């Protein structure tokens, strides 16, 4: 077995594998485009391979990317075992089992309705309501709530030792954390009751309320009636929903759950990641680790490298002449161009690597654990690639 590269750990007091071994739920959040989905999958794969037990990675991203990273075609709403053959392709015999699932918003909403509906008639009416169909299928906000809801459900089944959740890159960074609370607030709001009163009792003078005047002029009466019908139906499930939402909230705040923030060291994602880290701490949730992805290799900051690069760039002509014998057959002009190019290239990459290293140093106090995953020249497109990426996270 090849020697594993020690992970680049900067903060001495926490470890990522310790985190994976001690928690039941890991929620990976962070800005879009930083490899969050892949990192979540890699973390779960490492936990299954080296830690053991049953590990599930649940992706809630509407873009179907986990399948790519896991080499699985069309993972559905139900959990599926990642075959041991996948681990074998990476030369690993896993101690545990890895499962993967993707969130199908529509399907999850339907399941929730079926679970909470008081009777078959209400259930069917809700499922057929045009507004419901819109909420559950078309609009993205409903992802936030349903993701946390499904996490709760899977956790409650008690099948998995560890669940790693990938979160959607939400519009408002931490919407998904507030989603259960918002949902509960929403269903218990006086406004909701206020709105549906006229449809329950025609005795209330509809036109007397300014809100209705406005709403009616903008939306039209039929639409208001649709909304009202929808919520009258939903009211029958009110208690179940609110109770459930509160339970989800409790689970997220529980010490069994930990959050990790994934980012790259680029300016914009990093700023967003810092915001995530801060918001998680402010909510008194557990920030387990910051994972920095696509970190450029250290050799780019080697001071001797810069000396060589400058000599090659500035003295290309002379060095090319001297190399001509060794590179017998190559034209000196060609050698000169190659030397100048590789010198300049090093200096270019060095600029970026240095600026990233500076930002990484600034981050080292933000979380208990800070791990970095090196930049890979090729994409993660198979399981071996995923494990290679995971090796950056793991320490034994």
């Amino acid at each position, binding site marked *: 077995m090849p020697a594993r590269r020690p992970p680049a750990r900067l903060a001495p007091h926490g470890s990522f594998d310790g985190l994976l071994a001690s928690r039941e739920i890991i929620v990976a959040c962070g800005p879009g485009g930083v490899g969050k989905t892949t990192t979540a999958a890699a973390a779960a794969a490492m936990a299954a391979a080296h830690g053991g037990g049953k590990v599930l990675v649940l992706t809630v*991203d509407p873009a179907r990317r986990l399948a790519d990273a896991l080499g699985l075609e069309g993972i559905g709403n139900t959990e599926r075992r990642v075959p041991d053959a996948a681990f074998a392709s990476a030369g690993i015999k896993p101690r545990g089992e890895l499962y993967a699932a993707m969130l199908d918003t529509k399907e999850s909403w339907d399941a929730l309705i079926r679970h909470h509906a008081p009777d078959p008639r209400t259930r069917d009416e809700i499922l057929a309501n045009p507004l419901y169909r*819109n909420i559950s299928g078309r609009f993205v906000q409903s992802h936030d709530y349903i993701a946390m809801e499904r996490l709760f459900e899977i956790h409650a089944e008690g099948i998995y030792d560890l669940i790693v959740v990938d979160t959607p890159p939400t519009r408002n960074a931490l919407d998904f954390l507030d989603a259960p609370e918002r949902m509960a607030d929403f269903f218990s709001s006086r406004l909701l009751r206020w709105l549906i009163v006229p449809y329950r009792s025609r005795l209330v003078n509809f036109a007397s309320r*300014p*809100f209705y005047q*406005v709403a009616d002029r903008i*939306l039209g009466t039929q639409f208001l009636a649709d909304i009202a019908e929808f*919520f009258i139906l939903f009211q029958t499930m009110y208690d179940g929903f609110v109770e459930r939402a509160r339970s989800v909230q409790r689970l997220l705040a529980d010490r069994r759950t930990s959050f990790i923030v994934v980012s790259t060291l680029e300016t914009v994602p990093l700023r967003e990641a810092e915001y995530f880290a801060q918001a998680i701490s402010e909510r008194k949730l557990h920030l387990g680790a910051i994972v920095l992805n696509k970190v450029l290799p250290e050799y780019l900051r080697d001071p001797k490298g810069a000396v*060589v690069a400058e000599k090659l760039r500035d003295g290309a002509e002379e060095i090319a002449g001297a190399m001509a014998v060794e590179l017998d057959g190559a034209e000196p002009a060609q050698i000169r*161009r190659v030397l100048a190019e590789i010198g300049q290239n090093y200096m270019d*990459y060095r600029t970026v690597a240095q600026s990233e290293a500076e930002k990484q140093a600034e981050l080292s106090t933000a979380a208990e654990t800070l791990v970095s995953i090196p930049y890979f020249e090729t994409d993660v497109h198979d399981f071996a690639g995923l494990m290679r990426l995971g090796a950056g996270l793991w320490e034994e």
Partner: protein
Amino acid sequence: MVGLLDRRLVFVTGKGGVGKTTVAAALALFASEHGRRTLLCEVDAKGDVASFLESGPTSFTAHEALPNLWAMSMDTEASLREYLRLNLRIPVVGRIGPLAKAFDFVATAAPGVREILTVGKLCFEVREKHYDLVVVDAPATGHIVGQLTAPQAINELVKVGLIRSQTDWMLDILSDPHQTALAIVTTPEEMPVNETIELAERVKKETTVELASVIVNRVLPELFGRSEEEVFDRLCQGAATSELGRLVGEDPAPVLAAARLAVTLRRTHAGHLERLRSSIDASVPMLYLPFLFARFHGLRSIRQVARSLGEELGF
């Protein structure tokens, strides 16, 4: 196809992390420098536009951040206030009571309300001809279709009323390729390219908006031609490497490794670019912007991107 700068409303989208805001800001800056009175609107109010233009925080009320370039950030509640004020002549404050709460409620209850208020405001600016060009730093790939189809969705849900007639003129603007365009920003990497291809298909199938260009950001330079790469390969072999080391007085390994990294990355990216080009309708132009090896961000980088964008647009 009508040029990007000759439209009235350009939505710029892309997968998170590809530089969508940078490109939107650069496009707006370039347009403003070429005589277009331009509005740049940030829809996901994260404050990135403000930090790129270095002109102070943006709000719902546009301010002239640079000559000829106005900047604003979307605020759906403010948009609703403006809408009510303009359309119903209701002095909003005081009369509707706790508008914020009512709005929050309606927006949650009736999906698409936030989207329609966003698109509505943008279309309104176009219709009123306040600007020559409105550039939208639009939601990311996962959300843009919901945004662009909001008027249709509302149209299907709401059969009568003011909103119904309002969505009609919005749809007219959105589906007119002389006025409205969508640009997708990507990088030459696997996942962004996948999402771009997927999105292009969805846009064609589900929306009425024309995809006017795919902008590939952070394209790495090509270090070598083929024969030069042969020279480089020979440089990396034992004897040549030590000779080079002797000449420069230090181990050249880091420099060679960096060049190898650059060559490999470029090659991986080239594969994705080919896949992208062959999957996107041939009539959709692709623009290429170089990777910036720079320590700076903010206005200086936006200017640089704007210059590259201008060259690609044929200016």
